[in-house]
């Protein structure tokens, strides 16, 4: 698990080992040598956790990770070429709740060092070129506002095959983790659902491949648009995936929710996802799907 398989394609840079990648990741993780796993409550040595892709070595609980770390885990080392970084969130509605949206944006940007809740770009996955889009849960719960919707749409459009131009396109991989639509952009964030889904219709018409990877948590307007539209839908183990949040459902039906409700394994049983894939196998799985699709 700690080494990438070597990639045979000549156009990919030479792969690095995980140990070479690790220092960059470690810098982004806050202090504290030990932490408690929220699932098994055992104390975990942070270095062991990181070396294990942030999966608890005791109970295989998948810790939530940001987009930067996700890219490092999925892309072949140093192959990720980030795109669309010139897009910045605006405050079209002058939204104000207890704080203004503008204040919230600045605070989140300072906290995460990111412009918005997404990173997208071209990369290689085990030597196969792909368009990789990762939502970032650390930024406003990974919510989808105009920037997230626009970035996803541009990434899909840039990867859509175009026969007339002799462009074969790229496989699109979107890793979702999001609380849903971004309330502070109200109706405009709702429209991102239609925009991204329409772009996927075009990708589909052109014969492109879209693999949707669902991670903890994927809910609301993100699930109800691009995230559930994958040609293949993969989910990380025990991820919360649903349309409505469990609290809302509980208030509606006024009874206890069954154990494991809205978790990946529940969705697998309900026929809503193709496979539950542990984080350590995700690269292999993605590479395999790209090969099978011939894209």
């Amino acid at each position, binding site marked *: 698990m700690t080494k990438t398989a070597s990639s045979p394609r000549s156009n990919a840079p030479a792969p690095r080992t995980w140990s070479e990648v690790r220092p960059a990741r470690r810098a982004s993780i806050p202090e504290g040598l030990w932490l408690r796993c929220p699932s098994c409550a055992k104390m975990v040595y942070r270095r062991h956790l990181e070396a294990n892709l942030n999966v608890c070595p005791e109970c295989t609980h998948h810790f939530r990770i940001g987009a930067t770390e996700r890219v490092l885990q999925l892309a072949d080392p140093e192959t990720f070429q980030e795109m669309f970084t*010139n*897009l*910045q*969130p*605006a405050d*079209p*509605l002058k*939204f104000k*709740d*207890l704080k203004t949206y503008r204040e919230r944006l600045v605070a989140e940007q300072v906290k995460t060092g990111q412009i918005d809740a997404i990173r997208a770009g071209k990369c290689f996955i085990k030597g196969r070129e792909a368009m990789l889009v990762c939502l970032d849960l650390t930024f406003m719960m990974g919510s989808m*506002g*105009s*920037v997230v*919707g*626009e970035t996803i*749409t541009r990434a899909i459009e840039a990867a859509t095959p175009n026969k007339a131009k002799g462009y074969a396109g790229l496989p699109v991989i979107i890793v979702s983790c999001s609380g849903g*639509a*971004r*309330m502070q*952009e*109200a*109706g*405009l*964030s*709702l*429209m*991102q*659902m*239609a*925009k991204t*889904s*329409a*772009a*996927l*219709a*075009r990708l*589909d*018409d052109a014969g492109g491949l879209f693999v949707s990877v669902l991670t903890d948590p994927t809910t*609301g*307007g993100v*699930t*109800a*648009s*691009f*995230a*559930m*539209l994958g040609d293949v839908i993969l989910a990380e183990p025990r991820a919360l995936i*649903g*349309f*409505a*949040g469990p609290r*809302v*459902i509980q208030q*509606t*039906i006024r009874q206890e929710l*069954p154990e494991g*409700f809205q978790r990946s394994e*529940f969705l697998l049983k*309900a026929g*809503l996802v193709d496979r539950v894939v542990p984080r350590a196998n995700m690269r292999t799985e993605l590479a395999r799907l790209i090969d099978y699709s011939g894209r």
Partner: protein
Amino acid sequence: MATYYQLDFEKPLVQLDQKIDDIESRIRVEEPDPALATGVESLRSQAQSLKTERAGMLSDIYSKLTAWQTVRVARHPLRPQTRDYIELMTRDFAEMHGDRRFGDDPALVTGMCRIGPIKVMLVGHQKGRETSEKIACHFGCAHPEGYRKALLKMQLAEKFGLPIVTLVDTPGAYPGLGAEQRGQAEAIAVNLREMSRLRVPIVSIVIGEGGSGGALGIAVADRVAMLQHAWYSVISPEGCAAILWKEANEQTNTAAAKSLKLTAADNLELGIVDDVIPEALGGAHRDPKATANSLSDWIVRTLQELKKQSPEDLVNARYERFRRMGQFLEQAPA
């Protein structure tokens, strides 16, 4: 009039209605007696001036509705629903049930009908009027089978070359156990994708509540309009208040409704809808027929305009319509 459910901001009207009722009942009593003819005459003129005053007050109240008050009007129990509009503005409605997979969701009504000179496929949310109907319809919150039924009928319309009319009126898609288990999110997502590439004209009108994905799930259209007092946004004001203000009460709901920019005028300004269709004075519930007429006028006019486009142009223009949505800052790439 007196049987109307009263909204709190309509209170001044109630007192006037009371006065008008009193005078009119006196007129009825005194009219047969010729000796009281002059008294009746003055009562009549009194009633007339009160009615004028009332109309002025009504138009005043409704021209100054706050966002939260608009939401309350959009939820008025007597507000016309999809089945009322079917009754009022269509002919020869051939209802079609079921998604052929799981069941039939009464919260989404589908069928072919005629509006003016045009044959259309109509799809609309139904909230229900009587308690039993409301419960069966889950108060207009559709299940996945509802969205799948809607798509199946819309694809049938595509096959026959029938334009599609959708009437949106839902607080949101149903949040429940069965709905999740049967793929509520997937059902809505597939509708968004498939509606974007249907090769027939689609028009959508938010007739009451346009609550989030549950509304959008039948509203990916070439032209989207709202009735004057409808609302359309990503979440209900109560939902938004509960999350961002930590509690939903009259005050936070009012603030959330305002922040969400959910009124017809706001949505028009944001470019989310293309037109606002005027309602009868004092809301659609005060004159359903007149509202149905302006609704059907808009539908006929819009469909006749869309009919001129080829299917390719239609689908491309629909893509571009949603492609433009969103506002952000963009720096020139370095």
